[in-house]
Each structure stands twice: as C-alpha cells, then as structure tokens.
C-alpha cells in the first residue's frame, strides 16, 4: 500500500511541488526528497531537537510532522540562514566565534530554535537561554559555547536592529 499526495511548500523562499508518500515525515521529505540535508535526525521521537525547523515562523520538530501536513506551509531550515552572498547569520557567526559547535550534528536544530527564541526575546538572560535550549540535546559541547553564542548573537542582533532604526 503506497499512498501518495501532491503537495506544495515553500522552503527558504523556494517553492517546491512534489508527490510524496503520505507517511513520510517532514524531516525525511526535506532531507531525502528535497536534498536539504542540513536538518538532522537524532532521535525521531521528538526529544533531541536536532530536526528543529521553522514552520510558518514557528519552531517545530520536523520528525513529528508528516510532509503532507506542511502542504502550503513556509518552511525555514538551516540552509536558509546565511545571506545569499554567503554572509553568516549573526547566530551562525556567534556560534563560530564562541566555539558553539563541535561535531555540528545538533547545530542546525540549535540555530533554528534560537532564531525563533531571539525574535521573541531579544535580550535574554543566561537562564532564559539555557531553558530555551533545554529541548535540544548536545553531547559534545557541554552547552557552554552554545549559551555564550546565543547571548553574543542576541547582543549583535540588538546592535544591528539599533543600526537599522
């Protein structure tokens, strides 16, 4: 029994139309059907957070959604964070500058979680950052560099926002 559906979604601003088996998760769809392998699968039961993406601007575990549920949605993944000219997003730059990643496997989920978090809380405390990251597991860093990067990025983004206004 292979049941498929035609769906359409926008990923990082690019419209995709595809026919996909209804049971395929959104994570697998992004990774294996659209070739966007920056979104990673670490547990496939919604705990590790590595597969976190933005669905219509809100963070979600892409292992806990079916691809068909994203029909019509706007998806943002780690591949869309840097500028078209390759300039890193302030979060990406801060992760580099603060040694916020080691093996890099959890990193895309960390970044996408923080994108949403810093939008809603541009000036967080360290405790708030730690709580915001508590749904994303990292086995390498001990989180210190990630927390430092988040706070650093928040500061950069606030400075950027001031510069723009």
């Amino acid at each position, binding site marked *: 029994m292979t049941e498929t559906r035609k769906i359409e979604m926008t990923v990082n601003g690019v419209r995709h139309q595809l026919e996909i088996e209804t049971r395929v998760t959104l994570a697998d769809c992004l990774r294996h059907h659209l070739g966007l392998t920056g979104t990673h699968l670490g547990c496939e039961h919604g705990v590790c957070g590595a597969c976190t993406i933005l669905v219509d601007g809100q963070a979600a575990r892409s292992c806990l959604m079916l691809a068909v549920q994203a029909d019509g949605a706007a998806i943002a993944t780690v591949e869309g964070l840097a500028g078209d000219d390759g300039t*890193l997003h302030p979060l990406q730059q801060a992760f580099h500058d603060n040694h916020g990643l*080691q093996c890099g496997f959890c990193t895309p989920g960390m970044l996408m979680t923080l994108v949403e978090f810093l939008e809603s809380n541009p000036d967080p405390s360290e405790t708030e950052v730690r709580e915001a990251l508590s749904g994303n597991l990292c086995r390498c860093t001990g989180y210190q560099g990630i927390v430092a990067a988040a706070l650093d990025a928040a500061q950069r983004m606030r400075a950027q926002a001031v510069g723009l206004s």
Partner: protein
Amino acid sequence: MTESFIGARIGRFEDRALLTGQGQYLDDIHMAGMLEMAFVRSPHPHALIRGIDAGKALALPGVHAVYSHADLAAVLTADRIPQDKGGAKFPDTTWPVVLPKDETCFVGEPVAAVVAESRYIAEDAAALVEVDYEPLQPAADCRDAAAPGAPKVHLEAKDNIVAEIRADYGDCTAAFAAADHVFAISLKQHRGAAHSIEGRGIIASYSAVGDEMTVWASVQTPHKLRNGLMELFGVDESGVRVIVPDVGGAFGGKNVIYPEDVMVAVAARLLERPVKWVEDRREHFLAAVQERDQYWDLEIACDGEGRIQGVRGKIIHDQGAYTMMGLHTPHNSAIAVPGPYVVPNYRIDVVVTETNKVGCVPIRGAGYPEACFAMERLLDEIARGLDLDRAEVRRRNLIPADQMPYEHPMKTREGTPTIYDTGDFPACQVQALETADYAGFATRQARARSEGRYLGIGVSNMVKVTGRGPFESGVVRVGRSGRVSIYTGAMEMGQGTKTSLAQICAEHLGVPPGEITVVAGDTGAVLHGIGGYGSRQTVTGGSSVHLAAIEVRDKALKVAAHTLEVSERDLELKDGEARVKGAPELSMSLADIAKALSGAKGYSLPKEVTPWLQSCVNFRPPDVTYANAAHVVEVEVDIGTGGVRILRYVMANDSGRLINPTLAEGQLVGGTVHGIGNTLFEWMGYDENAQPVTTTLADYLLPTAAEVPNFEIIHVEHPSTLNPLGVKGIGEAGTVPVAGAVISAIEHALEPFGVRIAEAPISPGRLIELIAAGKQGS
C-alpha cells in the same frame, strides 16, 4: 618574530560547512541505485533460533533481499567479527558473531537483515520476517551471572567468566595488618551508552570491476573497519577502502566493528548495489555498545595521619553478551584506582563476566571514571574516619611534584612500567580550591543552612592515560598548486582535529592554517592509521604532522636555497614561498618547489633530496603520557525533592602544552558534562530478565543546557617530555573526576542526615531514600 599558530585561539575551519547545513554526514550521502537496510532484532535476551521465514517479507514490493546466517558463507571467510586480540585470551563463545546461527544472546541483536528500496519499506519488511524463537533463561545481573551454576549467556560456553584480571604490587596483607585504620566500602557503578547525537551508519558500494569495495562509515577508526572487512572478505588493502564523512559525535560508540557494518558490506557485495544503513536511536539503545555495570568491594588502609598504606578489593564487571573490544574497560578500572595518589600496596581482582545484554566497551573515560570514583570515595572514608578535611586528606596523599617523573609501581595494560612524565598534582588541587574559594565555603554553607538550604562542596583528582600508540600517521604534502595538505589516520569527530593539525603544520610551512587541506579518515589516502579514541590524537597524530611538516620545510628550503643560490639559513618560509630574509624579492614559491620535486622540467635539484615535496611520519610515542586534573564542585540539594543543582564548577586541568586553548576548553566542558550525565542523569535500565527498559531519550536522560552550569577552567601546562609537541590528551580528561567530586559534594550537603553514597549515578529518588534512612538512623 612570526606569530605562532600553536597555542593560538583560532576559530575552527570545520565550522562554516557545519553551520550552514553543508556538512556531509553519513545519512546525507545519496547514490544512484542505493538500497537501504533494516534489521530484524531479537526481542529475547536469550533464545534459540529454530527457523527464519522471510517469505512474507520477500513478497513485499520493493524488497530486494533478506539475509540470515545461512547467507554469510557465500561471501565471508568467517561468521565472527575479527578484532585485534592482543595477548588476551577469551573463550571462543564470547567472540561477536556477524549474525547468530541458532542462538541469540541479547535483546536487539541482529538476527536477519532486510534490504529494500527505502528505509520505510525495509522496516515494513523486517516486521514481516517470522523468526521462530525458543526462549532460554537469561543471565541478567552480572553478580548472579558470575556465580557457579548461573544460567549461561551462551549455551556452549563453560561458564560466563570471560577473564579474571589481577592488578597488584607491594604486600597488601602486611600493609593492612600493620595499618592504623582500615575502611571498607561497596560501590555500585553504572555508565550508559555513547549517545552521540548522530547514530552509527554505513554505506557500502561494491564494484565487480577490480573487485573493490568502497565503504563510507561514521566511525572513529576507519582503518580498523577496513582491516576487519579485508579479513572477512579475504582481500588485501586494495580491496576495501573506508572513507569517513563528517561524524556527528562518537564517544566510544563508533570504535568497534558491528554486525550491521558487516551486513551492509555483505549486501552490497551480493547485490552489487550501494546499500545504506543508518542507526536510529532505538537501535543505539539496543545494539550500540555501553559501559554499564561494575560492582566494587574495596578496602583502604592508612596510618594515623590519613596516609594511604594500601588499597585492595574486587570488581565484578559486566561485559555483556560479546567481547566487542577486549578487556580495556575492566583492565583500566583495575589499574587506574591509585591515579594521582601514592598507594604503596595494592591488589585488585576483577571478574569479567558475560550477561545477556549488549556488549560493553570503553565509552568516554574507559573505566577511569569508575576507578577515580572508587578512589575518591575511599579518601572520603579516611576523611570521615579520621575527622580530617577532605582536601587535606588528598593533599597528604597526592604524589609530590618533586617526585616527577614518577614511576608508579603499577604495570600498564601492556605490562610496562607506569611513568607519570610531568605534572604537579598538589599545585593543581591548590589552584582549583583557591579559584573555587574552598576556604570560604563553610561560611557560605552556614549562611545557606540558616535559610534551610543544603550546600555541599566536593573535590576530586584524577590522572588519565592518554596518547596511546603504537603510532599515528601524518603525511604532509605540498601539491603542484602549492596547496599544503595533511593526510592522517587521526579522526575528526567534533574535536577540531583538522584545525589543530593545520595549526601545527602551518607553524612550520609559513602558510595560514586555514589554507591547509586536512584529509582525515580515508584509508585510500593513508594506508595505515589508528584513529580517534583514548585521548590520543594530538599526541600521536599531532606529533606526526609536526615532524612531517618540519621535514617538508627543510626539503623546501634545500631546494629553494639550491635554486636561489643562497644559504638555507638565509631563507624563511612565508606566505607560501621560500624567501630570503630581508630580501623578499628573492623567492621561490612552494608551488614551484613542489613542481621541481615532482618531475617538472627545467629545475635543478640538489643531489641529496628525494623527489616529492612530501613527508610521511608515523610518530611512535616512547610511552603513553598522563593528563591530570583537580575538580571542585559546589552543589545545592533540595532535601524535599532530592533535586541536585550545581552551583559552581571549577577545574584545573593539565593536558600539557595546548595547541588551541579554545578547543581544549570545548573538550573539557563537553567531557565534564558527559560525567555529570553519568553521575546524575544517565541510567540504562534493564529489568531482572535482561529486557532493556529505558529505550527512548525521554527515559534515558542526557543532561540539557538547563541542568549544567558554566564551568571555570584553569589550564595548567606541564609539557609532556614524551612527544615533540609536549602535548597530552584531553578528550576524556573532563569526564573522569566528575562522579568523585559531585557525589562527594552531595554527601557533604547531606551530612546533617548522615547520608553515605556508594553508587553512581544517583537519582533524586534514591537521595530521598538515603535522607530518610539517615534520619531514621540518627
């Protein structure tokens, strides 16, 4: 004076791809015609396999094959997985099988492999394979399994004992008889699995043209996998190439050859199509190696001042159903107890016993965390018994700095003398204590107590063997483009190995480290190598690259001096060229030198140089080198819930000379949080029938950002004398002392209730039990 790259806080060159989603991990690799594998796994801890019916599975559209033990002989020379045995002797029955013939020995053991168009279909089909099991009695608890007459893990085995290890020196009997005080403890220790966020994974592709197998695998030791597959398929080095893509963490879990690895290769060979298998998290829980259980009975003897006279005891070590990688963990536990302390007399006996659970091998720390915890618990016993300050007891027993290098009476795993080459253990502790304001703790504790809060402080010291040989390969090559490349058997699994090696190489070749290509983890690029484990890579691989870069530099200068008709002494390598100091217009580019040495016409070469601008060095350290550390941790225990909060964590760590302090800090913090997981959160549960009961990340708890503090790190740098860089290992250094310090701090906080802790991990529920028992007892 040119800037030094060694010791510089350089940002990692690995980062950009990983931050932008352009990393290439195993599961990111797609190939035309690729099939995917799923496994039929045993639901029983121990059972006979009476038959396997794959009819329904094979009938499912999209399914290409179902393999079981009967299919192996067609392509493999053996049905057990090869490994370097060293001098150790084990019963044949403990040798890991590719697929079991007729007896399965742990829950999750692969019994059959399914190959299909997609992982989805492969899992559908795996559920349709009918296996006729006859359940047998399992051996669950290692203490029971070690006893005579216990149910056997393998029916054909004589018993469940894999090995008995003795570590001893001096005369314990006399020392204990003469001692002023003797204290005894019994400890239960448990460590979980590796749980890299990326699971294991492998792709194999076979070409009948040339009879060549190419394997991509997320492993720590590609050469070991290559060697194993060579042996199994009966080919030589040209027949199998293993390439390691980006690795999403490893921690010991990707350091053995697994049945799944072999089966992917078998399927690729039989089907002549690329085959992929990616471990999912449940498979990691069921079938990836763990470190698991040890039970310790220990005694320590000391004089009236708390100076250790002897340590003796017994360990029962849970080895699991198969010996996947020798006896490293139990052996390390047996010999590592004295650590940084003077222990004049010693004897530990270990019984390594099988159980019907997945095999145990070293996970980050490799038996050292258990040994350190045991020693630190014993020292706390002395402090309590003699009413001494815990840090003072340690100070009295630490090996004094003036005795370095210190020849420890303990023999290494290889039977050679244990020599701590450099370090100042007492000074390390002093620095950690001062930074943590140990002296002011009593005031903080009293103030908190007046508010009804319970604070405690703990200190522990450790020594960790690092830089294990026998060698690591390091090739430094300058191509005809002038591009410098490093090829090594050392591995990048997140540590920043590539950046570190580039820094070491750049130091000598006058090119920015960011412009150096590092190829790590390709058996086609370097014929032999060892890989990433045991805090060894900077010591061994770093030294090889260091020496190779020097040779390349010298050769380049020789050629340039010859061409420019100047003295080598007047030349320097800078910005990709050899130039005359003070007259930079007189220069020869590395590219031209490389061309001259690779057969380009029109160059004249000095007589004594050999062709190629390349050097291959396989640095063989004369001995292992030892990192050491002192950890001090302050905790608060909620006596209502048993919850433990870490208020402050300070470590003074000596890993010799640091190549990149930022990366070193990343290793230390990550390692320490792994230790916190092992101490407060992680528990791989099995029930009394050896059924695993914690098989999701919601049940097996890894620490998150919210549970850990910021760590304060003091770098102490006593360069090793055993390698040209003066470096010592660091990857496991953070993990080893954590349980010792944290448990001591918890016990200290709960002193008013007389709580004594003899186990790790410790859960809030267990603490509440101990508090209740203490209240009753008082």
